[in-house]
């Protein structure tokens, strides 16, 4: 006979192993009631009959030999999806300043490339697209082109991201009312909003596990990687491995946007913090150089000058 504490320990152990093996993630820091609620949700979606107790889940998991569908279902159920539009506004302000300057000097045949590798349900990618469209409305450089790559390990999240449909709560989190009205259409179903189709024109959504090699279509010289609030969920060694891989995908003048709570992880991987964005979680490559076509404007990317421009 299992005791409740034993049951909890077994359940946590099972969930942890699936999360770590499948995605390199740490055990979720949640209480037992929340753990059970999520397990139950997993079971309802996964099983042909509702499983009522953790013991039944264990039995079911063992019975299925921890198969691929079960693992994916647990991953989906326990992934963090708490996000909002323009989360970490400081990083978006920095991106805006950078885009205003960088795009002014970008030849029309060279696209600006940004990757959001843990985009959850798409808010981050859409925020970047909104920012870009607002800048384009100011016509500061009509020839400039932006490509946004947005991926997530969760099938469900990517499907939601592609749909661009958000409920009334999600749509209002992080969006000023003006942006909501300009970039979203109200759906007939009460309380739902759909992102306008033009926002998706420069976004490519795809499923991707950060433990695996990136797909071949992803450019190898990215200008920005936006991955806040993600690396802190990985076990330590895995976080270092992932950030090192991300670093290899950045162009020499590229920027990596983490969150203020992940500054240490950036240092650990050899990045240097942006002077203009102290403790913001915004990093440049340690080895800093200028893109060839911008040599004549190299001062633009001098960190000191950049810091001044950001603070102005």
């Amino acid at each position, binding site marked *: 006979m299992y005791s409740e504490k034993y049951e909890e320990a077994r359940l946590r152990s099972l969930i942890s192993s699936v999360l770590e093996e499948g995605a390199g993630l740490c055990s979720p820091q949640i209480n037992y009631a929340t753990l059970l609620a999520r397990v139950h949700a997993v079971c309802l979606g996964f099983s042909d009959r509702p499983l009522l107790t953790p013991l039944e889940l264990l039995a079911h998991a063992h019975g299925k030999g921890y198969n691929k569908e079960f693992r994916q279902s647990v991953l989906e159920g326990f992934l963090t999806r708490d996000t909002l539009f323009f989360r970490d506004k400081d990083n978006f302000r920095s991106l805006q300043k950078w885009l205003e300057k960088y795009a002014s000097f970008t030849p029309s045949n060279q696209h600006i490339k940004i990757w959001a590798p843990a985009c959850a349900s798409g808010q981050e990618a859409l925020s970047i697209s909104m920012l870009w469209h607002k800048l384009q409305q100011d016509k500061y450089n009509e020839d400039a082109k932006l490509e946004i790559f947005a991926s997530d390990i969760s099938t469900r999240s990517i499907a939601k991201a592609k749909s661009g449909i958000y409920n*009334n*709560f999600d749509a*209002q*989190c992080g969006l000023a009312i003006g942006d909501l009205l300009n970039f979203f259409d109200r759906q007939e179903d009460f*309380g739902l909003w759909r992102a306008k189709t033009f926002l998706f024109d420069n976004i490519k959504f795809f499923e991707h596990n950060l433990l695996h090699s990136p797909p071949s279509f992803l450019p190898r010289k990215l200008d920005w990687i936006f991955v806040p609030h993600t690396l802190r969920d990985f076990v330590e060694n895995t976080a270092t491995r992932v950030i090192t891989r991300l670093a290899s995908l950045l162009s020499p003048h590229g920027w990596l946007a983490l969150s203020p709570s992940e500054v240490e992880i950036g240092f650990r991987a050899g990045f240097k913090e942006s002077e203009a964005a102290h403790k913001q979680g915004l990093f440049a490559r340690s080895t800093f150089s200028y893109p060839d076509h911008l040599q004549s404007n190299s001062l633009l990317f001098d960190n000191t000058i950049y810091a001044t421009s950001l603070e102005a």
Partner: protein
Amino acid sequence: MAKNCLVVDDSKIVRVMARKILEGLGFEVFDAENGQEALDFCLKSPPDCVLLDWNMPVMSGLDFLKKIRAEAVGKNMKVIFCTTKTDADSVKQGMAAGANEYIMKPFDEGVIKSKLSEIGLI
């Protein structure tokens, strides 16, 4: 010193819910049941922020907003509409009358927090 917020809504449930959320965010919270009560309060001691329903008896939120914006004490007060009027025309009308932000009910802590951040109060 804690910032303060006046919650103006004829629904007690909304007032209680908003109070709990705002107190959790460190605000001192006052409430009023209609626009006239809110106007009287604001003229005596203008709060940092008003969370304002639209449809209320005695005086609507829109009328309150127009009146308070015409007063010297109300020029810089932050006002967030929080209403079930969610059509684009109403939003434009509310913003044109001087609202700083707009919440479409239903709302939760995340929405309130986001809007307060948007207008620089947190």
